[in-house]
């Protein structure tokens, strides 16, 4: 058997299996846990890169699970969007795990580390699964695994805030999965299929016979995925959950988990539903206005925050708005910008949360006004934070500029200059809350605990350096990833 044929399933199953081996390793040889988890994620990452190579050279292909052909078996769809998402998920989570291996010793009780890796690997496996799957019920199963694992990596810290936040997250997340399952039931009812390709073939006919079923399914899907992706009015769980969690959890939750739902929604909207449904219902318009509100309101809320992690969490509400805006303006450039922002924001926000975690690790200060002069005593995380903050604002030479550039280009190309103005305005708003932190960090005298921080372990510095360089690299040479994204948006728009 040629292993290259089985890469897609390998990328999902390997972390899944090792997730359950972690507690055993923890009992048997505690020192093996971290290298094993890192190794598994590295293999997944390499498998994703290899799939990207296969897709770029040989075109998209389908993988049949257990050799069962599509109407019966589960299929994995290895196309441009799928490999792009898989690379983002595995790559960023690998970097975050390096950081987590040291930071968690400080935030969790030592015997919980193995269990944390279990949840973490489950989370990554489910996200890769969601990226690759071509079967809607399979998508639901991965969504549920992701929901439990995501709540788990918050509540594992088991203090007052985390428990309350994760319960709120769990309830709203179950609500979202419930809506998703009902949408699946309605789609299955009228099409008789669970495979994306087959549903898409059956829908135009079903649309004529049972329009209400499909409209209800669309609405439920939008609400279900919207809750999970924290699209603006449905974002209430996010700030608490993401700010109280251990820093590595915040980094993956904010950087990756909310994005994967957005990408899944994108795939279902563009690949499953027939294009003419968007002429009957203003779904994309609703999405567009929700994302506009998210961008403005998220930034507004972020401005008034005092806690560094809470501010970053509200900033995520705004940033997921950009992603949805790119998806909702049906234009090649905007879609490219939206998909690119999934990748860029994953790097920036993971880095910002890890930098904030490094400040908290070394000084114990969470309050923004307490971080004056941190640039003098902790240069590496402070510079990383500065790069991330500049990328959030969208300063040229950082990757945030490129995705905003494409979004603005898309809005103008589609003849909707209002949304281009929204993006510019939100950049100003981002500047209002990010730039003072940088100024205070580098141009004030360090005082109190900030003046004498604990030394930062190397495992916590290296991920920050990698992601910081990544933000600059993809800001200077975006073509490294754009080739893949161009093809993904072409495929989605059917160009």
């Amino acid at each position: 058997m040629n292993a290259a044929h089985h890469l897609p399933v390998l990328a999902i199953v390997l972390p899944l299996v090792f997730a359950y081996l972690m507690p055993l390793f923890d009992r048997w040889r505690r020192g093996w846990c971290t290298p094993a988890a890192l190794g598994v994620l590295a293999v997944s990452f390499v498998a994703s890169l290899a799939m990207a190579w296969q897709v770029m050279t040989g075109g998209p292909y389908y993988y049949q699970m257990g050799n069962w052909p599509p109407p019966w078996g589960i299929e994995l769809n290895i196309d441009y969007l799928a490999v792009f998402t898989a690379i983002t998920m595995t790559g960023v989570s690998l970097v975050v795990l390096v950081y987590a291996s040291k930071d968690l010793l400080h935030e969790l009780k030592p015997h919980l580390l193995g269990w944390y890796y279990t949840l973490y690997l489950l989370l990554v496996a489910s996200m890769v699964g969601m990226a690759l799957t071509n079967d809607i019920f399979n998508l639901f199963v991965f969504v549920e695994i992701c929901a439990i694992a995501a709540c788990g990596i918050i509540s594992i810290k088991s203090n007052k805030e985390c428990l309350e936040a994760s319960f709120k997250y769990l309830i709203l997340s179950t609500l979202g999965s419930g809506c998703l399952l009902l949408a699946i039931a309605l789609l299955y009812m009228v099409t008789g299929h669970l495979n994306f390709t087959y549903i898409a073939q059956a829908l135009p006919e079903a649309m004529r016979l049972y329009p209400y079923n499909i409209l209800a399914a669309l609405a439920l899907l939008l609400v279900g995925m919207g809750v999970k992706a924290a699209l603006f009015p449905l974002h209430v769980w996010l700030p608490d959950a993401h700010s109280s969690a251990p820093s590595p959890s915040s980094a993956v939750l904010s950087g990756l988990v909310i994005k994967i739902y957005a990408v899944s929604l994108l795939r279902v909207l563009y690949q499953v539903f027939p294009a003419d449904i968007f002429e009957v219902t203003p779904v994309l318009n609703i999405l567009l206005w929700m994302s506009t509100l998210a961008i403005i309101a998220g930034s507004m809320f972020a401005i008034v925050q005092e806690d560094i992690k809470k501010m970053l969490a509200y900033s995520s509400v705004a940033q997921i708005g950009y992603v949805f805006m790119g998806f909702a303006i049906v234009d090649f450039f905007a879609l490219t910008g939206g998909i690119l922002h999934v990748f860029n924001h994953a790097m920036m926000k993971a880095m910002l949360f890890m930098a904030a975690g490094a400040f908290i690790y070394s000084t114990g200060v969470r309050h923004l006004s307490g971080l004056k002069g941190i640039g003098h005593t902790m240069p590496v995380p402070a510079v990383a934070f500065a790069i991330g903050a500049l990328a959030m604002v969208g300063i040229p030479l950082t990757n945030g500029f490129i995705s905003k550039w494409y979004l603005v280009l898309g809005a103008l190309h589609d003849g909707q200059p209002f949304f281009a103005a929204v993006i510019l305005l939100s950049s100003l708003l981002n500047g209002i809350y990010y730039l003072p932190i940088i100024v205070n960090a580098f141009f004030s005298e360090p005082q109190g605990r900030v003046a004498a921080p604990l030394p930062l372990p190397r495992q916590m510095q290296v991920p920050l350096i990698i992601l910081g360089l990544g933000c600059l690299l993809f800001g200077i040479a975006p073509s490294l990833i754009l080739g893949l994204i161009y093809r993904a948006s072409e495929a989605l728009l059917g160009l």
Partner: protein
Amino acid sequence: MSITDVLLRLHQNNFYFFAILLFIIGFHTMLTHNNLIKKVIGMNIMDTAIFLFFVAIGYIHGGRAPILEPGAAHLYVNPLPSALILTGIVVAVSITAYALSLIVKIYQHYGTIDAEEIMRLRGGETL
């Protein structure tokens, strides 16, 4: 469409009607009750409603359980929704277990399982 037509339609589709009714009851309980246990109960009602809906899709009037006998041609119900819902039930059970264990922990920390009360203890922080 007259009122008798509507009632007749409802009668013909009563599985779907009651499933949606249960779904709404569960949804409402989950979002409006302050008691965390009641929220979990609401969650379960909602999930059960979806399972009922899903299984009802596969039901064919007069069909029997899909156990194939060689040579006999019967009308069978669609087994696929039932098989899928088995997975759904497992997921719902695990989420319920997890939610209840969280509630135990919350009670240990806050001494209450009332969401309003917890909010007040945390300093009246909303949003």
